[in-house]
């Protein structure tokens, strides 16, 4: 039988829904998106199955996964494309077989998907960088900014990079140097930042890092150089990063309302699976869309964010023995 949100439509009661995620370099897909989406789907329709796949940053593999779920007769595909351009081919194939495609997180501009649910990466880049710039201005910091981007072969990293530039370039702070971290690897980021500390001794006012892994590596580089750690950004609000924000090592990270987005995606996918055509809140790329805004997390607002109902990370996990003191100080006990 169908769950609470479901109608009585025939196809929807034991439908298969595909949930195709792009990579494991960013931990959120495995940790949050997939389980939250699945949970919501179960709630909507207990007979439905979610086919979760992760393409590990390989567009060809994502295509293979899409073909595979189509062969299994899914009723809808929710996809976060590895490469927005290449995903057009997936949309083409799926729609050719009458399966609706919901673009998740990243848009598919070249081929009209059936629905688009997201916060966009460019915006994320812009937000973390802007938050840092504002902070630097507020503290009247002098010097320049280092920019640690994501993988040069990752389309999402390119979007974030663009967003960061849009905030850093007009900020008045000099961009000292930037680096595309091969494969998002933290040790590479650490090595690069270490070199830049040598190159620009005492000139680094702040570092914009494109995700929490590279952010953590940046902090480690400053610590290893025995220098004071300047404000460093992050992105993804993963547990370790939240702890660093609490302890004051990292300036900010960004929390995406993944639960809300995943729930919305599940609802929309369920609608499609039943043969309905849900309407969008707005239209983007000619596609009915729902957009959500992420929240920049800093020491100021971390308590609120963590206490928000439904936030993916539990306070108890964050405030381990080591961070107890800082947590109490911030009113998180």
């Amino acid at each position: 039988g169908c769950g609470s949100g479901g109608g009585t439509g025939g196809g929807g009661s034991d439908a298969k829904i595909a949930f195709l995620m792009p990579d494991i370099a960013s931990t959120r897909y495995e940790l949050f998106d997939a389980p939250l989406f699945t949970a919501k789907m179960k709630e909507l329709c207990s007979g439905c199955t979610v086919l979760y796949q992760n393409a590990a940053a390989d567009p060809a593999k994502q295509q293979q996964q899409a073909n595979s779920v189509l062969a299994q007769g899914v009723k809808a595909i929710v996809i976060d494309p590895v490469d927005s351009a290449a995903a057009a081919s997936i949309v083409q194939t799926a729609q050719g077989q009458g399966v609706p495609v919901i673009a998740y997180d990243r848009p598919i501009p070249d081929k009209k998907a059936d629905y688009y649910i997201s916060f966009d990466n460019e915006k994320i880049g812009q937000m973390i960088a802007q938050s840092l710039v504002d902070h630097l201005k507020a503290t009247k910091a002098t010097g320049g900014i280092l920019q640690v981007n994501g993988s040069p072969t990752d389309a999402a990293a390119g979007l974030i990079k663009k967003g960061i530039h849009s905030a850093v370039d007009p900020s008045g702070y000099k961009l000292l140097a930037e680096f595309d971290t091969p494969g998002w690897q933290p040790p590479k980021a650490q090595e690069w930042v270490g070199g830049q500390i040598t190159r620009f001794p005492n000139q680094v006012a702040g570092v914009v890092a494109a995700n929490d892994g590279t952010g953590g590596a940046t902090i480690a580089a400053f610590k290893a150089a025995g220098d004071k750690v300047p404000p460093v950004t992050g992105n993804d609000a993963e547990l370790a990063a939240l702890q660093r924000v609490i302890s004051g090592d990292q300036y900010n990270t960004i929390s995406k309302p993944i639960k809300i987005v995943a729930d919305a995606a599940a609802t929309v996918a369920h609608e499609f699976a039943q043969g309905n055509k849900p309407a969008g809140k707005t239209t983007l790329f000619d596609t009915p869309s729902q957009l959500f805004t992420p929240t920049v997390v800093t020491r100021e607002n971390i308590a609120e964010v963590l206490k928000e109902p439904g936030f993916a990370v539990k306070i108890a996990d964050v405030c381990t023995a080591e961070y107890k003191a800082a947590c109490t100080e911030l009113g998180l006990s």
Partner: protein
Amino acid sequence: MTAADLSDERLRQATGLRGSASALVDRVRAGELGMVPVVAGLLVICVVLQILNPIFLSSTNLVNLLMECVPVGVIALGIVCVLLVGQIDLSVGSISGLSAAIMAILFVKDGWPAWLAVLVALVAGCAIGVLYAEIFNRVGIPTFVITLAGLLSFLGLQLKALGAIGSVNLPFDSGLVEFAQLKFVPPWLSYVLVLLAAAWLFVVGFLHAAKRRTADLSARSTRFLLIRSGVLAVGLGLAAWYLNRTRGIGWMFVLFVALALILHYALTSTKWGKAVYAVGGNVEAARRAGINVRLVYTSVFAICTTLAAFGGVLGAARLAAANQASGGGDVNLNAIAAAVIGGTSLFGGRGTAFAAVLGVLVIQAISSGLTLLSLDSSYRFFVTGVVLLLAVGVDSLARRTRTSHGRA
């Protein structure tokens, strides 16, 4: 009377059915039926995967599977050549990515005709191979290092080529993309092809046997040849029938098989092929036999990189896009692994073109089978490793005694 080549009294004569059977076991152990255990391994994992998920052996899935193995398979064909001479190419991924980028830019952005864009990409690939071989022949840097440098350099060029755009879409209605995604062999033609293949196998075998008989050498009996062709016709026919229940056999897969057959012919039936095996087995002996070893290296690397470029083009066509990640990920490792899984030795001198075909089928079957399972990434990685061991283990166990005879 026994034939001239079977007259030694130490040869156990294989007579009757039991004789043939024990001869068969002998031959598997001696590694002469090299492919049989790999096929057995492939069957084992197919059964396992089918049990885990009944869609695995469905016609639709198999159709997809065959199409998906082509780009890496084509690259693996080239890798087999390089491994046969005891060298390695770590840069096939980058080369395939670069050639995809070149092709896409020339075709889409500069509006060249598709064939010309593809040709230029292939020529670029070929030039890279020649460059590698020149460096290897003249400076003597290990190919591991040369191609590692190539991996980095050509990735750099690929990023540069795609520069500000990052990703290029190929139009869906272009012949290239249609070929890679939507062109299937019509059912009647597939059966005709199967019959042609069987007939051809018989005719070639028959003529060869006749020639051997005239020369007073042992030859396969016509009955054996008939049965062999029959088995082939029925086997391929059934496969074609099953695939034709849905979309059928992709032309791209036919192209792959054709390439493998051509390479097989070149390796087994030409002077060049013998030179390749000789160089892989014992370079110094090959050199002393008057073989132009440098030319062999050059040809082999040129073939490898050209096929890598071709694989890249096919991959881009299948994906209908070329981007910065093209050729990245595990393309390198998968292509080399396919060759090795199929039984090609990393030390040179042992392997066949079919090794690439079988190896890539094993890899794709595992990958597709586990994709169907919707496991967590962590489980999927783990299970992939275990299933891979299982598939290759069958082969290795069958050859166990062979190694113990000092003939690894």
